[in-house]
């Protein structure tokens, strides 16, 4: 006969209980393994899904703002721009005229001007989304207000011009994440089908282990505004914002950040240190440089050479290059082996004549808005603010090194109290001196020519 031991029974029962609890713990702690397929890539969509109507407000109705607003409404059904804000009335008028021509009138009571126009816009009832497209100086305060008023956000790159702004963006990003507000940034390439496909190839080992990188944005001079009579200091600077560092962050942020972001993305980290050169040779207004060359040190011997220039009639071009132990890629659509043979090429869609097109059907700057709307309507959360803040800070690190000639570490720039711009932004005269930065310290010398024109 099998005797049942009471103590043993209790023990068994207890063990069974513990076993169940344990099994639960094991099951709940079992996380999905991260493999090469889990690359956190944005979806490639042909259009944003249907859903509840989304009403958006646009802050900054300049060219990119207007473009972003059009990208937003064209990315899917039931998407509207219902409110706009800009510092200047003429920019508001131009936008309204443009949208009136699409038969999409913006009610005049939803148009706000002045530096606090963004606050009034975000107080408009039933606003779901805001598009932030002002000069980047203002992005941090606009983003914070958007999060405080529970808005989903699309914001243009760069996301700030200084480390104080970057930390504000990251903090607001975490606040947004905590309450489920979606944030997409206008980095373009991260939403571009060909870049995404190339990234997947590289992550699957197509070029082996990455050993070095290069990023470049060399182009002709960019727009500038001459000062007009009647403009006060502030109005002039904001109308010519692309030429003042406190508003624009210099072109290493404004445009080159696209390439820097790609390198950070492919390398999966930010650099540890930067040593940069730069100068101003041909620029005519403002206080910025027109060329930079920066060595971004990613550690373990991996560097990315970053260059950007805005000077006419030079060797121009934009793009990236990443070299690995088994090949290299332009990050966009092609992979070569180390002998220069093409080993992979992205297949672009073909037009009606069967000829391969040069880009995807849906441009990246529309794809970005599709992603935002998709995230809001399907609940697949997205928040790109921190990663874009990191790439912007990478550019700031390079800029700072070029400006002052020192090597700048990530830790130093991340914790820096650099806060560009006047303490209070108001229309009127501005008491600031705009000296063009000169690296290093001067040579103390008494060398003077003995006569005019003497070679010294």
């Amino acid at each position, binding site marked *: *006969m099998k005797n*049942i031991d*009471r103590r043993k*029974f*209790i023990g068994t*029962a*207890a063990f069974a*209980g513990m076993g169940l609890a344990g099994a639960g*713990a094991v099951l709940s702690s079992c996380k999905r393994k991260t493999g090469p397929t889990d690359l956190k890539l944005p979806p490639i969509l042909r259009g944003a899904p249907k859903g509840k109507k989304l009403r958006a407000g646009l802050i900054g109705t300049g060219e990119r703002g207007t473009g972003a607003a059009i990208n937003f409404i064209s990315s899917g059904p039931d998407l509207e721009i219902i409110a706009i804000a800009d510092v200047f009335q003429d920019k508001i008028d131009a936008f309204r005229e443009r949208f009136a021509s699409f038969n999409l009138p913006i009610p005049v009571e939803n148009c706000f001007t002045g530096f606090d126009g963004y606050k009034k816009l975000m107080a408009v009832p039933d606003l779901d989304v805001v598009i932030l497209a002002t000069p980047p100086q203002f992005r941090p305060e606009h983003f914070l207000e958007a*999060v*405080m008023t529970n808005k989903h956000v699309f914001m243009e790159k760069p996301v700030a011009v200084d*480390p104080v702004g970057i*930390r*504000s963006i*990251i*903090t607001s990003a*975490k*606040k947004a*994440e*905590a*309450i489920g507000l979606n944030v997409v940034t206008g980095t373009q390439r991260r939403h571009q089908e060909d870049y995404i496909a190339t990234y997947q190839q590289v992550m699957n080992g197509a070029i082996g282990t990455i050993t070095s990188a290069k990023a470049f944005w060399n182009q002709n001079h960019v727009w500038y505004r001459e000062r007009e009579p009647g403009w006060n200091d502030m109005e002039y600077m904001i109308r010519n914002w692309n030429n003042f560092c406190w508003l624009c962050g210099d072109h290493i942020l404004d445009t080159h950040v696209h390439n820097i972001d790609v390198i950070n993305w492919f390398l999966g980290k930010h650099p540890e240190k930067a040593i940069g050169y730069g100068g101003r040779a041909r620029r005519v207004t403002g206080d910025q440089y027109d060329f930079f060359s920066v060595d971004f040190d990613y550690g373990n011997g991996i560097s990315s050479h970053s260059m950007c220039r805005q000077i006419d009639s030079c060797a121009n071009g934009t793009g990236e290059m990443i070299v690995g132990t088994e090949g290299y890629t332009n990050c966009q659509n092609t992979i070569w082996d180390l002998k220069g043979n093409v080993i992979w090429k992205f297949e672009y869609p073909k037009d009606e004549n069967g000829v391969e097109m040069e880009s995807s059907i849906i441009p990246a700057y529309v794809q970005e808005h599709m992603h935002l709307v998709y995230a809001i309507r399907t609940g697949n959360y997205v928040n790109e603010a921190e990663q874009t803040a990191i790439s912007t800070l990478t550019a700031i690190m390079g800029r700072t090194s070029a400006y002052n000639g020192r090597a700048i570490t990530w830790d*130093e720039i*991340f*914790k*820096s*109290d650099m806060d560009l711009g006047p303490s209070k932004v108001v229309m009127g005269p501005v008491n600031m001196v705009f000296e063009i930065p000169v690296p290093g310290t001067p040579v103390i010398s008494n060398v003077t020519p003995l006569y005019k024109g003497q070679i010294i």
Partner: protein
Amino acid sequence: MNFYYHNRKPFARRSKVWFLFLGILTTVLVIYGGNKALKYTSADKYCMSCHIHPAADQSWKMSTHYNNSSGVIVSCVDCHLPPKGEGYFFVKVKTGLRDLYGFYFKDSTKFDWEKKRLLEYAKGIVYEKSCLECHRNLFPVTLSVNGGNAHLFYTTSEDPLNCINCHLNVGHYDKNAAAHGHDTTFGVTVTSTEPPFTGPAKVERFEDFTEMIPGSRVSFKMVALQGGTFNMGSPEKEPLRDPDEGPVRKVTLSKFWIAETEVTWDEYMAFFSATASQGRTEGQVVTTIKADAISGATPPWGAPDQGWGRGSRPAITLSWYAANVYCRWLSQVTGKHYRLPTEAEWEYACRGGTETPYFFEGNPKKMTSGGFLKKLIKPDTSDIASRVVYNINSAFRTEEPSFVKANPFGLKNMSGNVAEFCSDFYSADFYKADSTGINPAGPVKGPEHVIRGGSFKSDAKDVRSAARDYTKTKAWLVTDPQMPKSKWWYSDCIDVGFRVVCEIDSITKH
């Protein structure tokens, strides 16, 4: 046979059912009873049945974890035990046993509750995981810019940081607790009604004098030391010595004056009020003693005196850099040459002519509270307690100079109270490397500076005349949320100060 055999089965089955039932019942009872007991012993009432003192009960009820606008009450075990599944039961049993022991074998009226409020102790009884169990969102929408920076720092820091590093008094209210804000009015109020000194002390001969800080009512005594040759460091047979204190070497020093006491808050505040830089901008670095304007410290965050009071207590939490700027300023306003002591000058002054471990009689081995035997044999405090503020006789805070007797040179608190900055860089093997031994000033460069004398936190071992220590800049700024961190104030060091030395050229050049 058959009958018996047939009969047996139902009986066995019945017994099985019976045992099964009994088993289930017992299990249920044990689990139910266990749960009840667990609940009972984890209730606030149960905790308070022993922890009846106001230090625990009243201060908890006045804290934000009880007295808050949301009405949520956070229980004792929510903070003082780790979350369930993270060592809850283990710690519960461990703390329970300790509390039982304390309840039956110790006198709770003799507990030093102030000591238990200190961060070092609190870290052992408050569990970070428990903080984070409730505080899951470190970035609530209402978080301020400074809060955001601080939490960003917390989440990205590679150094171990605990919530209570910054939020020490959130569970038990402390009216003396250092306020959190940027104290821009620090040192602004002037209370003295007496007329301020119009000039510094005039010194004609090499003898003791009382320095007066012009424009203030603050004065302090400077003691003239003849210098000469002495044995620096501790011999290898000295109990509890560390290797960096040797080898013992002959060191020759010129004459100098040294302050009778550590620089007091009164002295430091005279400097602060006269030179404080407003706002966040750090003052420019002044490179020459004769520079006309010295930019002093920025306003501190919180209360640098830890709420213990200022007056003649030693100034603390100021940085090594700030101490040096203070000396430059003091030199400027008095027309003399003040500076930090070298490590050799410091030890010479501390020894007061003695060659023993302390400047008084006694064996460090008998005085230390380290070592497991000291749990049974009480450390000997007879000679040391009236002369040194250290871990046994301090309330884990600084004391005024009147608390102790002077050393043979007439100097107070050389050992204990607060550790003191020296001008030398620290190097563990400098004693071996120093070849001349004449007015040695330490290594040419190094990462940290020497501090000497130990503090109110120190064991008797570390207040010996030869005991060496050094600044720990990174750790002492670990919770400073500013970016960059302050160069004037240490956020995480409350037991280091300094005293000044005056050079003889002060009178020769007059």
